């Protein structure tokens, strides 16, 4: 089974009041975990997103798509990145818990739908 583990927050502006030690610790933990999950083959894919400061939101307004500069959600609630892992739900929760223990930012775990008909 594939799960997407999404991280919210932890981007540019939300780091303003953190100490260099805290940031370094957070970053090294994330990199170490990413490396370990790749080595065990559990990570199918992982991506980081740029700061939402330069995001564009396209809404349907007055019967037409209307792009506007700016993110859809508040920066604290913006998607910062995700892992797609292969494994059990318990394992996905375990991975997310290890990250949250360090970052303190929330993570959401969602099972991915099966698309095997296409493969």
């Amino acid at each position, binding site marked *: 089974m594939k799960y997407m583990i999404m991280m919210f927050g932890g981007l540019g502006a939300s780091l*303003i009041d*953190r100490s260099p030690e805290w940031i370094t610790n957070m*970053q*090294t933990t994330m*990199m170490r975990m*990413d490396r370990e999950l790749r080595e065990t083959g559990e990570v199918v894919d992982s991506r980081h997103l*740029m*700061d939402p*400061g330069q995001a564009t939101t396209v809404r349907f307004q007055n019967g037409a798509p209307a792009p506007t500069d700016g993110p859809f959600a508040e920066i604290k609630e913006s998607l910062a990145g995700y892992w797609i892992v292969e494994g059990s739900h318990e394992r996905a929760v375990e991975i997310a818990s290890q990250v949250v223990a360090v970052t303190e930012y929330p993570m959401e775990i969602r099972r991915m739908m099966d698309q095997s008909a296409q493969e």
Partner: protein
Amino acid sequence: MQSETVNTAEGLLRELAPQVLGALVRRHGQFDACEDAVQEALLAATVQWPADGVPERPRSWLLTVATRTLIDHWRTDSARRRRETAAALDPTEGSGFESQDALVLLFLCCHPALSPPSQLALTLRAVGGLSTAQIAAAFLVPETTMAQRIGRAKQRIRDTGARFVLPPPDERAGRLGVVLHVLYLLFNEGYTASSGPALHRADLTAEAIRLTRLSHRLQPGETEVAGLLALMLLTDARRAARTDPDGSIVPLADQDRTLWDATAIAEGQALLTGTLGSGPVGPYQIQAAIAALHDEARIAEQTDWPQILALYDVLAQVAPGPVVTLSRAVAVAMVNGPVAGLALLGTLDADDRMAHTHRLEAVRAHLLEQAGHPQGARESYLRAARMTASLPEQRYLTLRAASLSDLPVRSTPAPPPSS
């Protein structure tokens, strides 16, 4: 031992790929179909050679398999190809144009009608001999996406009616400019992403150097080709020192220079010495000369900044642009102080071309820090961190900002240094 055999075989395959493709296209036209046939032959070799050993005449082996694939394709395609099939079976050998073939291919793949991503992908496949899966992995896109991109690029080349010959003399310089730009993009694509999930992209840098080396061997008189090769070697020489074991960026001034690749530096310098003055001096040679000056300094403090600034002055005349102004501002700051550098940076504020890059803010942050304005520096670091698309750079910039946040809050900005 086993893997070494495989690697040698793969290196040989990649070197032969453009030669075989060139010979095939020269004989049959149809770049499109020939390219597919060569890919199949490469695949067959990847499977058979490690098991059975490399054949005695690997080039002929590949050419035979590719030709057979092409004929099979035509036979199943339709009977109207009968004439071509007969011609393909003609055993007379190629006409001695082989050495030029890779160059013709390079010009074809860097056809101005193609978008830069298509030029990069097609060059890697047809000239570099990489598989679609390898190229997709290097650019971090799904294989199906890359297959479509390459398919469309080939279609586009067929539509333009481009022939398998070198561009005519009056177009040659312009077309060479496109080729060099593609190779330069390829190099940067590999060089700017240098850690974590993107580690394997270092292969792109090596591939860019290999193809530029090939390009230089085939046209040794083109000074800008030599300049680009020198620039790549002199820049790539610092790779090992550019990131620490965590994958974080180490700025040039803080790098452990004993980690620099002395062999690559020597080769780059020799190339440059042999080139400068032998023909027109273009932007790649000037940038290579700047890189060489950095590489020559055993410690950062020995860097010959006045000479570097003089070269940036020349570059600003030969190839003016906001990126050159930005680099020149750093040199100005090193020679005349951070305030002078900041003044030059100010001229870029209204430039739309800088609106989507973090570099302007990153440089401003460094200069503000040097000038004794920690508050302003911190804000610029944070702005730059929000704008960068590179993870290692984002980490570096965020950390620099955070390291300035412990400073006591000032009610008024520090006065600029009186120097």
